[in-house]
């Protein structure tokens, strides 16, 4: 599953980030990395873009970019 499938109730963990270099570089710079926990925090009327709570920050991503981030459900 990818970041776009994450819901508000479910906490997930990032498994891998793919996509173009520029995107990976930008996400890395923001501290979005493998192993981090994420959750959906807000969505707009159109369902795109969305905001995710990642680490200590809230980050807005368009679905085109968010689908490059692979996640897995994590329980705790």
């Amino acid at each position: 599953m990818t970041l776009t499938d994450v819901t508000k109730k479910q906490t997930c963990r990032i498994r891998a980030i793919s996509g173009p270099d520029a995107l990976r570089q930008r996400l890395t710079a923001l501290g979005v990395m493998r192993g981090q926990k994420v959750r959906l925090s807000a969505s707009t009327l159109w369902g795109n873009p969305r905001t995710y709570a990642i680490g200590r920050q809230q980050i807005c991503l368009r679905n085109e970019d968010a689908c490059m981030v692979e996640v897995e459900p994590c329980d705790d």
Partner: protein
Amino acid sequence: MTDQVFTIALLGNPNCGKTSLFNLLTGSRQRTGNMAGVTVTGREGEREHRGVTLRFVDLPGIYSLSHNRVEERVARDYLFETPPDLVLNVLDAGNLARNLALTTQLLEQQLPSLIAVNMLDEAEAQGITLDCDSLAKLLDVPVLPSDGRKPRYLDLLLDTIVDHLHLCAPAQALEIGYEKHVEGALTRLSETGLKRWQAVQALESGGDVAFVLYDEQQTLLQQEIKQLESYHDDSAAQLIAEGRYGFIHGLMHNSGSDHDEISFAEHWLDSLVLNRWLGFPVFVCLLWLMFESTFTLGAYPADWIDATVSGLGQWLANALPEGLLRDVLVDGLIAGVGGVLVFLPNVVLLFTFIAIMEQSGYMARAAFLTDRLMSRVGLHGKAFVPLVMGFGCNVPAIMATRTIEEPRARLITILINPFMSCSARLPVYVLLAGIFFADRAGTVMFGIYMLGILMAFTVAAILSRTLPTQHDESFIMELPPWRIPTLRSLLLHVWDKAGDFLSKIGGVILVGSLLIWLLQTFPQNADQSYLEQLGHLLAPLFAPLGLGWQETVALLSGFIAKEVIAATLAVVYQMGEHDMAGLQAALLAGLAPAAGLALMVFTLLYMPCLATIAVIRRETGSWRWALLSILLGLVLAWVGAFITYKLGSLWL
């Protein structure tokens, strides 16, 4: 006087409070705001402390030294081209791990640094503990608490800076142990003569660095990057970042700082403002409320100013003997300057609302809410911020487009910015809406602003389909935490804006009013004054819009600065009357309501003022775009006003 001058650069992640700290340190008043990318160019300021002169340089926020977006390049190039004596690395205590990632780059590069941990008040409120002393010991650089909003830690910070500057022992370069394949690549790159930090940055940035890489180094680098990708699924940049964060987590653990990486607590405001169904309606309501209260609340102080000004006019009219001097003072100066001065409260209110939006963190959220709409016209949510700033003044707003990386998106944002109605046009709307639509003036103004936005979007849609596209910029943006704006920062900001407005009144509006008065009064004893002749010359162009020669000259005078339009109307209509009521009555008699609306639409859309044209020319680098902007504005304004007048005549 001191003979020692040191340069200190403030560096840190976006929105960590660098400019706030800079303002405290130097007593300047640079723009701050609760969102990333407020500062777009370097600014300098000085301060004397214990006999040395400290020259502080405020830089745009950056996430990493090895990235090359426009605003990150400003800071990176500054460090390389004019190495400062000391880097004051500002950290956000609320997000320490990510902020420390930049710090590790600085220390790897052995830049003389000093760390100021900002936003401690917020971290404390969140229950984050932090031990500056043990962090300092582990990193081997001074780590000090700081506060961007209050001067409580300032003396300690300044003392330590001066002490540290006198102490010229260079610190040890920080060495982080990376993953073993990365280490292998680093060793091989070092053998070509690169320093370790240079090799790290080259790998991290894919070769786009501020120092020179020889061809063979470049080739080896690309080879190493490919190889790392093939060993792991991650890029070199990701592997290095993992190394950094591993080091940072160890550091935070050992210094007893909290490194619980997650905080999912949702702010109650976000559950309203970013609610999937309510978010957008709330946004539109807020905008409406902003214009409504700009009009209604502004009316009270405007009345007091009006009373004072007209009292002064009366007094002068009675005290002075009849003659040219009395006329120039009463009908030229007081009518013109007073005619604009009454709108000061409205302008101040509008700026207050924009400032609250910027300082609280709502602006970034609005950018998020509007991203989808913006993407339809080839822009993205970030373009929203310069557009709203355009409600204040188009000049800084156009400068703020520098945060938009993609050249086409930036160009479009620049070109549509003049359609965002700046505060200089506000007096015309307040005046006309108050006369012709007294009961729903706020709503009419909201409508005018919406029309401007609609035009901006239409033009953007057309431009984005005609201009050649380059790579698509992804919309990745950090939402700042909500912050309650301090009264002090709001007052300072608004005071500055009021000052700008007043100095314009004392300058261009004063001169403009006098000029209009001169043209209106001379030649004496003739059928038509120069002004009337000029107006009649061009009036045929404006007649289809329902406008007379008076409005024609008013619009002409607005080329210089839009505030002058109101001043001119006041001077040409106010002969013999000394207060707003008189002007309103005169306008009501002279113009049809539909023509009033057409005049508002024309004022909204027609060409940018001189200052805006100059900044468009500068930021786009060519007169071509400035010219296009003028033509586009004139054509749209005429057509828009024509349609408004025709439709308005049917309905009103």
